[in-house]
């Protein structure tokens, strides 16, 4: 199928993009990698009047070292993110999750920022951003602002981005001395997560000093599993202790029933996958 007609502009600068998007209001959409947007346009599930292409904004591509954090440009593709040496060194969880997104072709075009802005509850990167305490840099009609991940994901397919806002980059605090794992559960390679678990663990002397856990698709937004984190803090690095902590995965979660799975099934999966994710992250 062919999308409905729209106007198109290729932004030369972030300011251009903000102006064009602000001008179009609710009828405007930013176009990043297009890997979520184009299928929707083709099925005519969305018909924006104006597309503002961010593809020319090379300054939004790439990863740089910023002291205690990495800054990942919103337009960095999944493929670039998952191969980037800085990401591997300081935020391997992001690389692990990016590698599970779609397929090669989709990862060549789809972007890190696009995934976060799209905020699909089944998307793999929002949960990771939440687990990593990432902070989004947003350019908008009122200038630049920073939004922490915990405030960025607002609702089903809804973020803190308003009309005219462009996600510019994402600041990810380095996790030094941590080990991580992204556990994605889906039946077919190409499918989205039924449930996913992002886990990061810092071990010291046979116990778990600290852990970060976030869940994908256990609610309309990604969910930080604070209960699990709490139970793991200082817990012995044993299978039993992890299993017990994982039992708290549902605290704060409110899974949906959708075409892919029932809430009941998700409720079964979350603790199991949390246990597996933490075990794998902790090298247990």
């Amino acid at each position: 199928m062919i999308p409905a007609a729209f106007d198109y502009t290729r932004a030369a600068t972030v300011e251009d993009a903000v102006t064009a998007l602000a001008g179009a209001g609710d009828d405007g959409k930013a176009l990043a990698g297009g890997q979520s947007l184009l299928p929707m346009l083709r099925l005519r599930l969305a018909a924006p009047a104006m597309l503002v292409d961010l593809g020319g904004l090379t300054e939004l591509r790439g990863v740089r070292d910023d002291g205690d954090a990495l800054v990942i440009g919103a337009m960095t593709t999944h493929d670039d993110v998952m191969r980037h040496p800085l990401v591997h060194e300081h935020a391997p969880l992001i690389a692990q999750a990016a590698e599970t997104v779609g397929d090669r072709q989709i990862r060549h075009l789809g972007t890190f920022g696009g995934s976060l802005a799209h905020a699909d509850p089944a998307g793999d990167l929002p949960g990771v951003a939440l687990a990593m305490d990432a902070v989004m840099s947003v350019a908008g009609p009122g200038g630049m602002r920073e939004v922490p991940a915990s405030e960025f994901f607002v609702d089903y397919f809804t973020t803190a981005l308003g009309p005219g806002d462009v996600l510019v980059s994402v600041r990810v605090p380095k996790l030094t001395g941590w080990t991580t794992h992204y556990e994605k559960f889906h039946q077919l390679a190409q499918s989205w997560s039924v449930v996913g678990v992002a886990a990061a663990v810092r071990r010291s002397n046979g116990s778990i000093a600290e852990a970060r856990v976030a869940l994908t698709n256990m609610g309309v937004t990604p969910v930080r599993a604070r209960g699990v984190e709490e139970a793991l803090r200082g817990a012995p690095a044993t299978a039993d202790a992890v299993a017990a902590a994982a039992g708290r995965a549902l605290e704060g979660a409110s899974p949906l029933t959708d075409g892919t799975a029932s809430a009941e099934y998700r409720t079964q999966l979350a603790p199991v996958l949390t246990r597996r994710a933490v075990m794998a992250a902790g090298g247990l």
Partner: protein
Amino acid sequence: MTRITMTVDGVRYDDDVEPRTLLVQHLRDRLGKVGTVVGCDTSNCGACTVLLSGKSVKSCSVLAVQADGADVTTIEGLAGTDGELHPVQAAFHESHGLQCGFCTPGMIMSAVDLLTENADPSDAEIREGLEGNLCRCTGYQNIVKAVRSAAESMRASVPSTPESAATTEGVTT
């Protein structure tokens, strides 16, 4: 209408296109590159896969305007100018990696891309690498075999630098 310039299979084209025109439509309807086909609306089947600036993409999920200035290689530009088959094409034939052949252009382009990155993939890596391409006929077994044997013949012909093993052969710029 937006003016775009694109090099496709070594030939440069300038065209005015409607922004909503998909790259695959542009290739098929305007440029006559009907070797690249469309199998779905949702970016799942991979039948439309081409190389965009050397990387595999699904040409149904790229607007032609997004590809302005890019270099595109389709299945039709893969063989050498003398008609010599690309090793992946030859291997698909040799290993019976196709039946109806509808998925084949996309499958071959994905395999070419995969081998550019990994010159010696395991069967599991081949299967993962082709996860974005659906085939309803072959059960994939002979496709995997074809990619494995293409990798072997490409390694044999380009012994030293793996990076150069599978560039977009046949495209002159």
